[in-house]
């Protein structure tokens, strides 16, 4: 049998088998899902890129098969999913309805592979819906308080996305009489401008929901933080990339390759604003999960900007960032999950000083956060460097400024994750906390290791990206093992960066450790400068609440200003729309229902005009 089909069968069939396996015995189920995850990764690497499965069904020509470009996203899913599954085993231990959870989990993975394999719109849509519904069920799986609202928000926005996808597919079918994705790409230039814009924008809305682009991001923070962390690492790390995959398909393959760049530029602006706002929201969160969720929104903003700009280096950077985001956000969500499992909460105001209790989690978090903040020599810097250079050399000055604002402000929440969870005043409350089980730390450490290696020798990651870029239609993709260059010919040699930092660090580590070694001693965090006053039991010396209050005060006017800016761009009355969007946050079911109805009405109107 073809490996492609085998892969799908493995996950969908495996999902069903897992369901029954968990009914029989938890241990068998655990072993089974680990096996399925690893087998999936193994099978993925056995896939021949050129193999294609064609099915004729009711007059429709359907096709399954990777191309060079979707393969790179498949790589992300294939590597992240077994790690997430293995991590999930200890993480989910003791929860109820595991069979249900794992079945959906495997369905999501299978559906993601399906989306990437789909060569036609119908199968893409089918897998898209499977992915959406399975993930929706996982989001509401924990049955927590307020989850119905979160789930409603998520499914509502997914529905909006699905309807626009569906409308677009119907439009495509009506205009070019073929549901093959390749056909649309090839004949896109033939379409009238109206159809080009309509189809493209409907598709962008459809994919943009999953990529959490600015006005469509509302669901993301809550959904990311509500799902079990083992799933969120995949949810944010890989599943959001399905949206990115779709956006690349639309923006690069359809528009850019046919000479339309303005849509992309608009998208780039949306992306940059998403990055800034996501960052600002992340800064004011008190919950590590929420913070990471908002940070995901911000990071996806960078990627969307890169795609929107659409130059060679920018798209390269976007794909690189997309892969890295999978790695570091996966790590971070796993780490937060580990903290949640071990310490019982993820609130910054409650947690403190876990570094001595959970050193491995700390190390992987540290590396992932450095990657997230884009500080050399960890890999995150490379993605940011390429993105900035591509924007600067291409003259997108204001986009760079926005992204720089987002990334500098990103240091604030980067620090907060590390400080809030791992540093600060040690208290007896958490003295019994132990390091997470090995099965949880190993996936995190593996990904952290990957980030370090990719920072010094990014060529390993560049290689598949270059291949996929060629599949996208970019010619002459050159890359070197560790040297980055922009189109002006300026370059950065990552080995020198790593060497300069590493050698100095190690040399002085030796110096500072050896000098006066006998006089160096550890003291507890109670022995601090409290102005001479002996610390008392009743007082809290850990500074966690309203961490960035002065910054919040400083950006409060900017906040307001940029919100209105966005809504001006959308082109509606400021006040009305502000009120209108605020309703999403209210979680009132009627408003969502109303919105669905209105949306349908608009769709119908549009459809009437076209057909």
């Amino acid at each position: 049998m073809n490996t492609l089909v085998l892969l799908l069968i493995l996950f969908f069939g495996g999902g069903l088998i897992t369901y029954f396996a968990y009914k029989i015995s938890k241990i068998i189920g655990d072993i089974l899902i680990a096996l399925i995850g690893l087998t999936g990764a193994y099978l993925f690497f056995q896939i021949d890129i050129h193999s294609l499965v064609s099915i004729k069904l009711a007059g429709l020509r359907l096709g399954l098969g990777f191309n060079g470009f979707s393969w790179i996203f498949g790589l992300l899913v294939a590597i992240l999913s077994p790690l997430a599954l293995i991590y999930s085993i200890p993480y989910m231990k003791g929860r109820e309805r595991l069979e249900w959870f794992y079945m959906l989990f495997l369905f999501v993975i299978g559906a993601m592979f399906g989306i990437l394999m789909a060569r036609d719109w119908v199968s893409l849509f089918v897998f898209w819906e499977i992915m959406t519904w399975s993930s929706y069920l996982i989001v509401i799986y924990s049955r927590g308080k307020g989850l119905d609202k979160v789930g409603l928000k998520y499914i509502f926005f997914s529905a909006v996305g699905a309807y626009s996808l569906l409308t677009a597919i119907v439009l495509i079918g009506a205009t070019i009489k073929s549901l093959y994705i390749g056909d649309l790409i090839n004949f896109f230039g033939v379409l009238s401008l109206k159809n080009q814009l309509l189809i493209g924008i409907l598709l962008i809305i459809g994919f943009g929901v999953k990529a959490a682009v600015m006005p469509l991001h509302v669901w993301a923070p809550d959904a990311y933080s509500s799902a079990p962390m083992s799933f969120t690492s995949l949810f944010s790390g890989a599943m959001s990339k399905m949206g990115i995959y779709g956006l690349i398909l639309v923006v690069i393959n359809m528009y850019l390759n046919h000479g339309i760049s303005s849509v992309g530029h608009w998208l780039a602006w949306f992306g940059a604003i998403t990055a800034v706002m996501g960052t600002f929201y992340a800064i004011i969160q008190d919950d590590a999960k929420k913070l990471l969720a908002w940070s995901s929104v911000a990071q996806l903003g960078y990627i969307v900007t890169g795609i929107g700009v659409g130059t060679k280096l920018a798209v390269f950077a976007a794909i690189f960032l997309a892969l890295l985001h999978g790695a570091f956000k996966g790590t971070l969500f796993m780490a937060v999950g580990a903290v949640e499992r071990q310490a019982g909460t993820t609130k910054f105001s409650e947690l403190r000083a876990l570094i001595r209790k959970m050193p491995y989690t700390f190390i992987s978090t540290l590396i992932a956060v450095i990657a997230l903040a884009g500080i050399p020599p960890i890999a995150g810097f490379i993605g940011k460097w390429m993105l900035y250079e591509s924007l600067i050399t291409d003259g997108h000055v204001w986009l760079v400024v926005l992204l720089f604002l987002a990334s500098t402000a990103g240091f604030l929440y980067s620090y907060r994750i590390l400080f809030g969870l791992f540093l600060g005043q040690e208290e007896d409350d958490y003295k019994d906390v132990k390091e997470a089980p090995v099965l949880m730390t190993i996936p995190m450490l593996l990904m952290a290791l990957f980030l370090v290696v990719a920072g010094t020798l990014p060529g390993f990651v560049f290689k598949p990206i270059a291949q996929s870029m060629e599949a996208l239609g970019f010619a002459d993709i050159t890359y070197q093992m560790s040297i980055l260059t922009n189109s002006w010919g300026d370059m950065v040699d990552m080995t020198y960066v790593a060497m300069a930092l590493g050698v100095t660090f190690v040399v002085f580590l030796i110096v500072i450790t050896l000098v006066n070694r006998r006089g160096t001693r550890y003291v507890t965090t109670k022995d601090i400068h409290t102005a001479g006053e002996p610390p008392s039991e009743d007082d809290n010396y850990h500074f966690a609440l309203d961490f960035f209050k002065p910054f919040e005060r400083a950006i409060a006017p900017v906040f307001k200003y940029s919100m209105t800016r966005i809504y001006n761009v959308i082109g509606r009355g400021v006040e009305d729309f502000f009120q209108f969007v605020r309703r999403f946050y209210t979680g009132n079911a009627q408003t969502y229902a109303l919105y669905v109805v209105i949306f349908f009405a608009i769709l119908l109107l549009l459809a009437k005009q076209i057909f």
Partner: protein
Amino acid sequence: MNYVLNDRESAKIVEFIKNFARKNSLWVLAYGTGCGAIEIPPTMTSRYDAERFSVRGAATPRQADVLLITGYLSVKTLKRVIRSYEQMQDPKYVIGFGSCTINGGMYWDSYNTIKQLDLYIPVDVYINGCMPRPEAVLAGFAKLQELIGRGQANGWRHYKENLEWYRQNQRKLIKNWKMPDYNW
């Protein structure tokens, strides 16, 4: 000539350099314990300018070298002084400032001030007077520098070695000993 320094001589040279650096960089803990604190600003500011003798303030005990006990110590302050002193990094020096630190001064019969500072923390230099003029304070610092240069300002070592005796004295006064333990 082929003269090689032996261990003792080289240790001596290292010690000399260390003492030279220590005596020429005295960071004073910003702690006005008693009324003598009023003469510290003049000492530090433009007319007397202690900084030309390499004396400057430090905000926290971790960075400070010199603890200046400016005058009488009440029992409540003694507890904080001990904590501040123990948080300072070796080598550290104490200057007792004013007659109150020497023998209780004019508060000799007060129920709340200590009468003899060196029972509780080791004192390297006393400056007498009530209050000592800034010149006297500078002279005290000069004396301390001289002692450090000769390697004789060893109060901190003495404190470490006789910790039991000091603790006993301290605990006699401080009834509620509620402080974190320092792993000496």
